[in-house]
């Protein structure tokens, strides 16, 4: 019987969360030999306010392609946190941006927080890589793919000139969450 693991990236449209979901799906199913399905909020829902990208990862073929009960959820905005936490599995994981989710939602899940967007902006130097910081963070939080697989999947999509920037973003996100877990 295959094990199904569901991850949701949520935030505002334009934060690159769909790309983060695609990269995670590629890490699982192209770099590693797992099964993955990625889907996203679409249409008017994606164009203003809260937006989400979902990845289901399994060691066997995946039947239902949409999230049922989410094992791990990322929220980069308060709106996304409020809107999307209701389907987190009891005892599941929730990663929040400290600065942009001031009021962590209540529920039966473990909350982890760090300033994801400001880490990208200040430590890496480019706010645009916040999604890659978030991806590294979610890989560390879930352990669903190997650290190297996530990095490899990021670099598959990045032009030569931005390799170092993205490597740093990914690994910073990864290490920040690792530190929270230890």
């Amino acid at each position, binding site marked *: 019987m295959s094990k199904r693991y569901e991850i949701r990236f949520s935030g505002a449209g334009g934060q690159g969360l769909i790309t983060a979901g695609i990269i995670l799906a*590629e890490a699982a*199913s192209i770099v590693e030999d797992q099964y993955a399905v990625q889907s996203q909020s679409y*249409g*008017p829902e994606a164009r203003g306010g809260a937006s989400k990208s979902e990845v289901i990862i399994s060691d066997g073929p995946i039947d*239902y*392609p949409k999230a049922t009960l989410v094992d791990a959820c990322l929220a980069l905005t308060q709106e996304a946190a409020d809107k999307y936490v209701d389907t987190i599995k009891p005892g599941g994981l929730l990663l929040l941006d400290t600065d942009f989710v001031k009021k962590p939602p209540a529920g039966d899940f473990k909350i982890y927080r760090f300033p994801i967007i400001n880490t990208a902006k200040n430590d890496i130097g480019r706010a645009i890589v916040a999604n890659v910081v978030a991806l590294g963070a979610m890989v560390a939080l879930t352990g669903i793919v190997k650290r190297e697989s996530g990095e490899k999947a990021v670099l598959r999509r990045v032009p030569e000139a931005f390799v170092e920037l993205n490597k740093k973003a990914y690994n910073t996100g990864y290490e920040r969450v690792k530190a929270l877990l230890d």
Partner: protein
Amino acid sequence: MAKKVALLQGNEACAYGALYAGCSFFGGYPITPSTEVAEVLAKELPKTGGKFIQMEDEIAAMASVLGAALTGAKALTASSGPGISLKQELIGYACIAEIPCVIVNVMRGGPSTGMPTGPSQSDIMQARWGTHGDHAAIAVAPASCQEIFSETVRAFNLAETYRMPVQVLLDEINGHMRERIELPEPGELEILDRQAPPVSPEQYLPFDPSFGDVPPLAAFGSEYRFHVTGLNKAADGFPTTKARLVDAEERRQIRKVEANRDKIEKNEEYMVDDAEVVIVAIGTISRSARHAVTELRKQGRKVGMFRPITLWPFPEQRIAELAGQVKAIIVPEMNLGQMILEVERVIKGACDLHGIGRVDGEPISPFQIMDKVKEVY
């Protein structure tokens, strides 16, 4: 050798499947949620000498596909409900003039413009009876991105083999979701090409029934000259009102599908052998059904799934057999009851029948199906 793999959207897989099948022409008009099919082909077709045309509307897009197909090209269009409605006149023309082509319908809510970004399966009956008059229909309804690729290839094969339009039915969910697919090597999947007429241009008749139910189609514009019309026609392609000829050619066109059901039909069965309840579902919703069956089996319930991959012609015989074996059939579909009518017709009351309909833009979840199974059995 390692397989070439990629994470592709269903719509992208459809476009790459078309290219694999040898599609060299796309005529379309963009519409959500089908647009990625056109986007990929706009980029890829020119690289291999193919043609991509964005026409002024969906009707013209279908007309361009028929024109290209007549000249010998494997031609494709992709659209969604409102666009497919506009194409119906020319789909009928493709039926009667026997023009091979493939039409992708990424289904969204309706009628009319409905809900562009919501998934739907409400064009099931349109795919069968959308154009007027008696006609055969072939439609395939793949579920996964890998299958969208291979069924698009098969749709072209069926179109060429039976010289008729074939529809590929997707929905907003499997059109937009991304899955890993293994891209087949050339030669790995069967590709069927149009056969040149075995007679000289002088002897050629475009609808000569002595060749069987599917007369060979010459390339329009070549040395083979012939007439094409939407009127009932004689073997030479010119209009006729002779009762005997009209009757014979109408029946031939139905027969070319009916007499070849065994070659056209394709189904998947999951845990039906000892099932007391069978869920009949297509496309994305078959994936909900599979999840529900797996979960219910863990609870000791004898439930199975039957999935038509070829939706039209409908798998009458197998569903009738299953109806004799089970207590109940459940038909979940993202509409308010279309495929269930076909199931009802073929089971002739042999077992109980229940539907689950949903049209709010959300998929039917595995839990909804599990609840229904528990309610009825």
